[in-house]
């Protein structure tokens, strides 16, 4: 009986202790906990910090969080208006990329958006980003060269292509970022390249998916769900079944509202892959 009482007391005490300490955590919680500071730079007496879940800016979809620190007071500034413009400086031309507007999160010191880089930088060509923000009615501009690299695994998560309708599209996979042997939520974003600077979201098309394992007889998986447009998130959403770990090629076909195939082919015995695809390896 004595032992039981002792154990009970210990449990209660430890519960109290744990709850107290978690309260403390909340007070000093860092909103960027779990994110990586990919790059930061100083301008206008401010330090501008760009965060991501990933360690780098990769080609494809990048969700980016921005904080601005006042170098003098060493405190983060509550944001009111902020916008950005990524730009690729190629040897012959310049272009931007598909991106969202920046929205300020619940924590006013953090704004959030995404950029979809079509290509990596190299020795002669580079990306930079221009950020325009307003503090206390005063507008500032800051510009910084950023490194955009291909993902370490070299797997294709973005495709830029000319559709059969003569339009240039950018299609990028946004999820799963951590694929599992399961039915994964599968999402992608589709943009039309209107001109070098404008990439509007394409609505109401359809993307069929056919995951295959080229190393294992090019077999497929059951219960996949083709991607269809979700107006709320502006993404194409579907389901992707991965029956085992390893390398999967997700063969795709893009269809417009009239069900005309704009890009991609069926996978058959003779045609082992579509010209439009993503890759996953885990």
């Amino acid at each position, binding site marked *: 009986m004595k032992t039981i009482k002792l154990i009970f007391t210990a449990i209660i005490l430890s519960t109290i202790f744990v709850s107290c300490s978690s309260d403390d955590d909340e007070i000093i919680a860092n909103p960027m906990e779990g994110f990586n500071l990919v790059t930061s730079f100083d301008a206008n007496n401010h330090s501008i910090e760009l965060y991501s879940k990933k360690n780098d800016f990769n080609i494809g979809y990048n969700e980016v969080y921005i904080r601005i620190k006042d170098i003098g007071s060493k405190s983060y500034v509550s944001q009111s208006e902020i916008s950005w413009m990524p730009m690729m400086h190629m040897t012959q031309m310049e272009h931007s990329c598909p991106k969202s507007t920046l929205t300020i999160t619940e924590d006013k010191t953090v704004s959030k958006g995404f950029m979809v880089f079509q290509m990596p930088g190299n020795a002669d060509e580079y990306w930079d980003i221009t950020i325009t923000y307003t503090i206390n009615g005063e507008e500032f501009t800051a510009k910084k060269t950023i490194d955009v690299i291909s993902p370490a695994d070299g797997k294709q998560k973005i495709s830029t292509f000319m559709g059969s309708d003569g339009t240039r599209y950018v299609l990028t996979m946004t999820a799963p970022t951590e694929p599992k*042997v*399961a039915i994964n939520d599968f999402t992608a974003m589709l943009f039309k390249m209107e001109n070098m600077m404008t990439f509007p979201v394409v609505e109401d098309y359809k993307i069929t998916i056919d995951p295959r394992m080229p*190393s294992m007889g090019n*077999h497929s998986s059951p219960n996949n769900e083709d991607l269809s447009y979700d107006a709320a998130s502006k993404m194409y959403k579907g389901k992707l079944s991965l*029956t*085992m*770990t*390893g390398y999967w090629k997700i063969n795709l076909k893009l269809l417009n509202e009239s069900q005309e195939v704009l890009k991609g082919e069926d996978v058959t015995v003779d045609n082992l892959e579509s010209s439009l695809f993503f890759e996953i390896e885990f």
Partner: protein
Amino acid sequence: MKTNIGVTSLFRILRAPFKRVNMLWYILLFQITPCWINAQEEILNKESDTIMPIDLEEVILISARKELDYQKQPKPLSSLDEYLELSQKVGMIKRGAYAWEPALNNMTSERLSVTIDGMRIFGACTDKMDPITSYVDVSNLAKAHVASGQQGSEYGTCIGGAIDLELDKSNFRETGFKASLEDAFETNNQLVVLGAEANYSNSDFYVDGDIIYRKAENYTAGNGEEIDFSQYTKYNISVNAGYKIDENKAITATTIYDEARDVGYPALPMDVSLARALIASVGFEQNTIGVFSDWKSKVYFNKVTHVMDDSQRPDVPIRMDMPGWSDTYGFFSEINLKIKKQDFLIKWDGFYNKSLAEMTMYPNNPNENPMFMLTWPDVRTWNTGLYAEDKISFKKSSLKLSTRLAVQNNNVADDFGLNSLRIFYPNMEESKTRVLKSVSVQYHKHLDPIHINAGVSYGERAPSVSEGYGFYLFNSFDNHDYIGDPNLKNEQAIEANAKISLEKAKLNIALEGNIFRMPNYIIGEVNTSLSTMTIGADGVKIYENLEYADLINVSVNTEYKVLPELTWSGSISYHQGKDDTDRNLPFISPVSYQSGIQYNKNSFSGAITMKGAGKQVNFSPEFGEDKTSDYIVFSLTLGKTFYLANDLVYAKAGVENVFDKYYSTYTDWKNVPRMGRNFFITFSYKIN
């Protein structure tokens, strides 16, 4: 004096009214070597003292340990598989030279309850390459009890029946110290068997230890063709001990360690680098407790590890490893009550099993990640059941009523595995509970010299781990990947059996048959919408419940004593299995027959046996079967006992498949041919 238990041989006795007749001709019929009549009678008499003659149970005697009667064993150090194959009801499905899978009434593992001394054990291989009979050896065993249909429900939930392998123990007999050495050699596959055992037993205490080692190279089929990947090596060690607390109570303990390595499976695309089992139990027995008697209880655990690999195969589309693990913890407790003409048995049992198996495939491109999946997603099976039977004796007849009620829960413990299965069954629950019922009535009437037995029963079983939860299990016979279905309904069986036998001093004839109607019969059916995973496979099958399937088994057995020392036996059997759309079920025997002449006199024994089957006309093309040809094979054995410096030596030699026939049977996976001509010789040396 020859006690029954010590008598060695493989004969089966129908523990029934047939008494000696039956035994005799059973022995003759299906065995290469008939039994010694005296011994048989002893066995029968002893049985009839304690057991009412109603159980239609077949007993295959295996051990010769306690008394030296090697005459009765056609091939004393043959594998357990070979012993079981001599039974009429048991067929052995072969994927190679090792670890055959027993089939009873043409039904296999998932429809049977196979136990070792009442302990449930489950193989760890998703491809059934390690039936639990492969984890014991003849050196451990006294008998195999073969109970058909619901007569087997005493041992566990089953449809086709039960096989209980009874361990060989000294059991407080006053035999003192005994030891023996055994040695066998076979020419066809250069099989070497070495065994040793030592026993000490008195009225308060016993300890039995044995060790056996077997090593075989590839065997050669009838046309001289060497069957690659048919080699194996294994050893087995066991220790049993018992201690009497007082006259009325005893505790017992058992440990078996079995390990096989480098086991080839010529019929399959993969081999086994390791198959290992540790089996342990502690038991308590009390002779009387108030009005009750024979109270026996046991707790046990066993741990099976099985590693499939293809590293020895020169040419595979992709390299893979497929290890599996199966751990079982269980108990049972049973007690008897005899009231006048009634004999009650009540048994409570339960087990908890963890089955986990994985597959890792290595892409030919070494820079690619390995492909990993769980083929058994850590399925936890908890089963507990209550069994009760009542045997009622009337004048010249008897009745047996029995029932089992079990509750079984399956739980998928691994999230990775659960998510994998949810690809196919998005709404699947991780846990599922089933209630399994069984009832049976068996009646026996004696109208001298005729015995009539008849029974009807109903039973249910839950899907096996593979049937419920298997994930891309490749079956090389029908060349399909199999996916389980956790939502399968229980399979049921309505069974009727009958036997009529004439038992005279010199002649026994028996006709027996059974019929099973199995509603919700579980079998894999092709799903054309699914993409095959295994390279080269023809499709994917999903386990489904058919509306029903029917199975019929009929046999006639005869035995005739030509002279006191010369006995002739013969048998013929017919089997049929069809589903609701009249398709043949897989692994159904064609017409098969056996006949033999056995001679026993003094220290000499000899036998000629013939065994054959008709063409497999009713085969299942869906399962990859074809019209396996008919065959007849002959075997010859000679045995002699002699003394060497007061110690007894027994030698037996023989030749199997005398005419080097090239053949395969319906039980041979993908028609892998059987062994050609094989000479064997065994020696046994008893140190008294």
